[in-house]
């Protein structure tokens, strides 16, 4: 299968801190790649670096054979990469509707139809359509953040801990949605919920102390008790 995103040996500084010190992984078309690792390992920073929010100082990031390392964030987004940040990034003073509106690049029928589809996924949002984003419950915010990213058909979606704060039944729905979307969209997922990660992930990358320490197919990891114990504390 074709490689859609190829991250190689990236180093990222935030201020004077050397946060990423050699993260490499690739995401293949139509697959779900999961980034795993402890708190503070650098998973979020990896996603941010891909989005151009914390630009890498070294290494390469190829998306569809184009080097996007030096591109500004909005260009990266416009080449077809969607992003669900870990802190949800909800515009607190804008209503749910307005939050969606900001995210929509155009308001043609196709987009509106897709919005309907997304809202069916998270019916709560429809109920609170005119409510301020800041007044949503934690889980509702998480839903809104995903809905915003899903409203366009992206080539690649970067999703940072989608299951956090969601009720079990909603997690299930999200998993279904991701599985559904996989057909057309490649997904990079950061997830602490191993059950979820193992169920929908195709391959994994283990990050520790800002560097890739292991990568492979998810089914291998599920069986590899040693790795799980060493880096994930489970098994």
């Amino acid at each position: 299968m074709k490689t859609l995103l190829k991250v190689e040996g990236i180093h990222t500084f935030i201020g004077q801190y050397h946060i990423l010190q050699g993260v490499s992984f690739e995401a293949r078309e139509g697959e779900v790649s999961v980034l795993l690792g402890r708190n503070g390992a650098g998973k979020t920073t990896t996603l941010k670096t891909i989005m151009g929010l914390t630009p890498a100082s070294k290494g390469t990031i190829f998306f569809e054979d184009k080097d996007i390392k030096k591109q500004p964030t909005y260009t990266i987004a416009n080449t077809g990469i969607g992003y669900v940040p870990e802190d949800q990034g909800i515009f607190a003073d804008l209503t749910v509707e307005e939050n969606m509106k900001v995210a929509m690049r155009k308001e043609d029928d196709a987009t509106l139809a897709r919005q309907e589809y997304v809202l069916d996924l998270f019916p709560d949002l429809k109920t609170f359509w005119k409510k301020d984003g800041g007044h949503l419950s934690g889980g509702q915010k998480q839903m809104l953040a995903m809905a915003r990213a899903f409203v366009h058909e992206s080539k690649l979606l970067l999703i940072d801990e989608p299951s956090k704060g969601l009720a079990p039944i909603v997690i299930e729905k999200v998993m279904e949605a991701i599985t559904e979307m996989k057909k057309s969209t490649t997904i990079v997922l950061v997830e602490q919920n191993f059950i979820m990660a193992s169920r929908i992930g195709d391959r994994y990358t283990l990050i520790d102390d800002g560097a890739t320490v292991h990568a492979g197919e998810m089914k291998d990891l599920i069986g590899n008790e040693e790795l799980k114990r060493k880096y994930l504390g489970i098994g």
Partner: protein
Amino acid sequence: MEPIIKTENLTIRFGGHTAVSKVNFEMPAKQLKSIIGPNGAGKTTFFNLLSGELKATEGDVYFKGENITSMSSVARARLGLGRSFQITNVFPNLTVLENVRLAVQSKEKIRYQMYRHFTHYKKLLEESQRLIGVVLLQGKEHAIASQLSHGEKRKLEIAMLLALDTEVLLLDEPTAGMSLEEVPAILDVIKAIKQTGDKTILLIEHKMDMILDLSDSIMVLFNGKLLADGSPEEIMNNETVQNAYLGGLYDENLAES
């Protein structure tokens, strides 16, 4: 025994939307009760009503028999209701140590002391250091809070609550976003507190394994209403809970743990 917290007809409306609706609930002292319910059920809002962050539209809150409905959050915190926040809520430009130290200072009731140098309070520092260790944040004392990773912030949040050392702890999804390997450590912390036997804990969580592991009882909120309050078994067997909250995932979830 007199319940330590009691609510009567507790209700709050935001515009036309009733987020918490006529909740009558009793919290027995020195127990751990979990609150579950779908997203937007009103769990956090209920906490906000207990801790005084929000004012009830109707109904009353009692703490040890005293009506505290009209008390400010400050007064309630001083009375012994401490809470952690679902959305991380720390002092962003202060260091981890300073964040915790402020909480310890409040516990020690050093509130209006204006002349002594703060570093004179060695005790405070030591206590803060200890708590930072408890939540596995050692080595990060001098990191600025806003520069922590998400999971680290969650831990800081817990450390601050622990520092307050209040009689009642209201924990709002303490482990959301915390890494797998560290959840057990935090669970242990909660368990340890529970075992000392002098604290009352209210816990909001969506992680069922954790809830079942810890809770003496579980209450379920649904659309702002109290749907059920009972032992873990009762709740897990409740059909509404299963259909509308747990879905299918929970079986495997249980099987895994």
